[in-house]
């Protein structure tokens, strides 16, 4: 470095052009145009009646919608509670096992998380069907004579939604359990606390944030759920999001449809907003706090906490503790076995449907039955020789590649900007970048439809890829930001001190360090688009169908084993991706 460069006075403009905050611009612009504006437009249209509230009054006065809204809240709440109840033992089980067993259990939870909701729901349809394994097993045992109607009722909706959303809960709780200092449990034990007291006084209070985050994520996702209740529910299980798509099919009138979507969106935002005020908005992306320039003084945080803690403790003492003491009379080891049995049951429930579907794909029968009467590859042949399926497959592949490219290029630069810049409103920007995660896809699809009609993007590759990128960007931002935060900045400073230019520093130090995260981001962004159904339902044309759309149509009209073939291929894709990514992923992680 010469004296001249050191001495040269930099103009403020040149300096400002080098600010990492500028890296945020492309992603923010993209989301503003394709995501924020359509949502704002949605609000505008919803208020376009004779008076602004006309359409909303109808939503809240017609029992069909009003009751469905209440039902949706009830179902979402029940599902979230079930997920906590089943997810906690599973998370503990992962935490307490070691070695190969831990890896197997963790895989059993994570794998379904990456498989499309549509496919997992289909697997439950197979499992619970009239000729499905459960009915067959019960008949074989002589418990029933005629097959039970296990599908198309409230029970199957709750079961399916819980199974689909459980991995989210388990991962959220596991993150907070794994973060615990192991010596805390030891300290409690050494202080004379029995296993139950350790759980109630130490483990549970300290993992409460993880439970809360998981509960909210599941609740919010369940609120906007569409695929699973449509496929598993009966006429009495209509959820709110389903009305929006049904109304979209039979255009009932501009405005009312938008009002339905706005109601769903506002409820979601209020829930997330209230939760975010209480526990910090970080719960959405499961990350730590972003350094926003000014660290919160500890004293204020404690003052805010103090009264709540007091109340919580009183409640815990008055209600929970006597109950637990009653349980304390149960034989020793009871707690450990509860965790093992409940966790084990959850693992089985997550894995068995997938295995059943994979087995059925090799069936010779032309209808769904388990176990298959004979084996054959005829459904694989049918899939690979059917030009409709092949076209859809090619479309999906192309769109997913395009979408992953958009997501990663915009998302990774935005993550750089978030982590490395020191601007105000950083948290707000991060919130904007990850917010598509919590907006119900049905609402997003509806709002985009209007925009895409105007721009002539309906049924185009670029249009669908861009729409899928709205959900892909948050995934990329979260993963890449996390791996950037893990990079030791002293390494970069060290390279710079020894003469590396900023670009060289990035190439030689930063990029290798975040490469595993980047690879994972590419894979997940690809998968997100490849599996996306709801937006595609709104934005595709009859001439251009994606794989999930074909699946959706087939599931609704003719439940045949070709679907099992597609599901098996998807599972193989995810497994293959994880196996390929494993060496890259584990290298980046500290042991």
């Amino acid at each position, binding site marked *: 470095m010469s004296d001249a460069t050191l001495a040269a006075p930099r103009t403020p403009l040149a300096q400002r052009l080098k600010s990492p905050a500028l890296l945020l611009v492309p992603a923010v612009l993209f989301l503003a145009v394709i995501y924020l504006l359509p949502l704002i437009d949605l609000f505008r249209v919803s208020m376009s009646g004779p008076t602004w509230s006309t359409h909303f009054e109808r939503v809240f006065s017609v029992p069909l919608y009003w009751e469905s809204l209440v039902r949706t809240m009830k179902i979402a709440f029940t599902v979230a509670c079930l997920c906590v109840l089943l997810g906690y033992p599973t998370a503990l089980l992962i935490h307490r096992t070691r070695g190969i067993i831990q890896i197997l259990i963790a895989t059993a939870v994570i794998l379904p998380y990456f498989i499309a909701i549509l496919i997992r729901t289909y697997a439950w349809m197979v499992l619970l069907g009239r000729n499905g394994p459960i009915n067959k097993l019960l008949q074989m045992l002589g418990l029933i004579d005629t097959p039970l109607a296990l599908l198309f009722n409230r029970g199957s909706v709750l079961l399916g939604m819980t199974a689909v959303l459980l991995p989210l809960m388990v991962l959220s709780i596991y993150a907070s359990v794994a973060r615990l200092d192991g010596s805390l449990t030891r*300290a409690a034990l050494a202080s*004379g606390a029995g296993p139950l007291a350790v759980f109630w006084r130490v483990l549970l209070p300290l993992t409460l944030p993880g439970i809360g985050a998981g509960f909210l994520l599941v609740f919010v996702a369940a609120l906007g759920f569409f695929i699973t209740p449509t496929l598993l529910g009966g006429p009495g299980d209509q959820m709110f999001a389903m009305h929006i798509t049904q109304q979209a099919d039979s255009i009932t009138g501009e405005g009312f449809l938008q009002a339905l979507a706005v109601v769903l969106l506002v409820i979601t935002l209020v829930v997330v907003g209230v939760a975010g005020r209480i526990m910090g908005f970080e719960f959405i992306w499961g990350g730590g706090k972003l350094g926003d320039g000014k660290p919160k003084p500890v004293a204020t945080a404690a003052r805010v906490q103090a009264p709540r803690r007091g109340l919580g403790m009183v409640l815990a003492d008055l209600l929970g503790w006597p109950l637990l003491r009653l349980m304390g009379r149960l034989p020793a080891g009871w707690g450990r076995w509860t965790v093992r049995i409940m966790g084990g049951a959850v693992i089985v429930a997550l894995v068995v449907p997938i295995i059943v579907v994979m087995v059925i794909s090799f069936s010779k029968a032309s209808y769904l039955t388990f176990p298959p009467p004979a084996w054959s590859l005829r459904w694989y042949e049918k899939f690979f020789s059917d030009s409709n399926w092949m076209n859809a497959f090619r479309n999906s592949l192309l769109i997913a590649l395009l979408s992953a490219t958009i997501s990663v290029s915009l998302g990774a630069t935005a993550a750089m900007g978030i982590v490395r810049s020191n601007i105000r409103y950083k948290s707000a920007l991060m919130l904007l970048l990850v917010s598509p995660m919590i907006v119900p896809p049905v609402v997003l699809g509806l709002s985009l439809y209007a925009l895409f009609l105007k721009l002539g993007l309906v049924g185009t590759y670029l249009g669908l890829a861009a729409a899928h990128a709205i959900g892909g960007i948050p995934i990329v931002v979260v993963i890449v930001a996390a791996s950037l935060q893990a990079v030791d900045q002293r390494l970069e400073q060290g390279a710079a001190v020894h003469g590396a230019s900023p670009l060289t520093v990035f190439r030689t130090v930063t990029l290798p360090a975040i490469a595993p995260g980047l690879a994972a981001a590419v894979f997940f962004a690809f998968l997100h688009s490849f599996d996306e159904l709801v937006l595609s339902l709104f934005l595709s044309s009859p001439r251009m169908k994606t794989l999930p759309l074909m699946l959706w149509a087939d599931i609704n009209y003719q439940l045949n084993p070709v679907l099992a073939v597609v599901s098996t291929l998807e599972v193989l894709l995810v497994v293959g991706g994880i196996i390929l990514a494993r060496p890259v992923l584990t290298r980046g992680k500290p042991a």
Partner: protein
Amino acid sequence: MAQTLARREMRLETSGTTTTAAVRAQEAIGAGISIREVVKRYGAFVAADRISLDIEPGEFITLLGPSGSGKTTLLNLLAGFQSLDGGQILVDGKPIQHVPVHRRGFGMVFQSYALFPNMTVAQNVGFPMRMARIDRETTDRRVAETLEMMRLSDHAAKLPAQMSGGQQQRVAIARAIVMRPRVVLMDEPLSALDRRLRESIQIELRELHQAIGSTILFVTHDQSEALTMSDRIAVMDAGHIVQIARPAEIYRRPQSRFVAGFVGESNLIDAQVLGRNGCVLTLRTPGGHVFEAESRHGVSGDSATVLIRPERIAIHAAPAPGTLPATVTSALFLGEVLRIEVMLDDGQRLLIRCPDIAGRELPELGAQVHVGWGAADSWVLS
């Protein structure tokens, strides 16, 4: 019905022991611990290899050793976090290996403090009392007493995260002693603190031990910590206790090269025994220098390793009877002492520490000096 009765009786019994525990806490008498032939393996690795150790009631005993020597394993076995693969541990004559951790009634201090982040200081300290179901009034009084003792009274309502490391560790100690347990286990409790703080808490702990009378088992890899606080030190290496003795004994008369090297700085000279005169051996270094050392062992012809602590060597400008000529290779001023390295003409290097007293100057590098020590200043390793 009979079952219910039996259960009720069991509950009565349990509450009975709680009361006696509370009474015992009032008397505050340390328990005697007897560790017999204890074995712990991790796969092929033997972490504790038939260790035996008897600890007197009320004793402050330190397990000292490098990492991996088995000291923490021994502590965890005693606490009950790990199960024995062989041997027995008796507390006051009763075997405890089948008593679960939370019924052992020990206090424990952890290296990472392990304070419950969701509880205030007072709640943390009161936690063992709550777990023992001691009434609120007694608990409050005892917590206040203990906080007073640890000079933490002003911090009772704070959360651990609002305190400094030193304060947090004092809270952890308060939690460990609030029940006045018979045994307190400490797992490198001071290693995360800076030196000055460590030294002041060392003295506090020593006083605390005298005040409450519990048996304390203290694990550390810091030899000066062990020397300062312990009644006895057990030096551990590779799953064995290699020497157990009072601090002065360990420092002055180590039993092996390992102990000599691990506790304090040392000069070790390999030499051959020429002869014995009462308690004094005459030895010759390979380089031909002859000197004397006290020892009860060794006969003419034996080879021996002689330990001379750096502060026992005197340095002279002029030759005197019994001194050896040497060249200064390094000289550092450390404050209260001068640290000087010299080389004898046969190549043997010696480290010397001498107090910074009036008239003493740091010698020049390369200066010719004469070093010497008395027979009583050296120790022959057996």
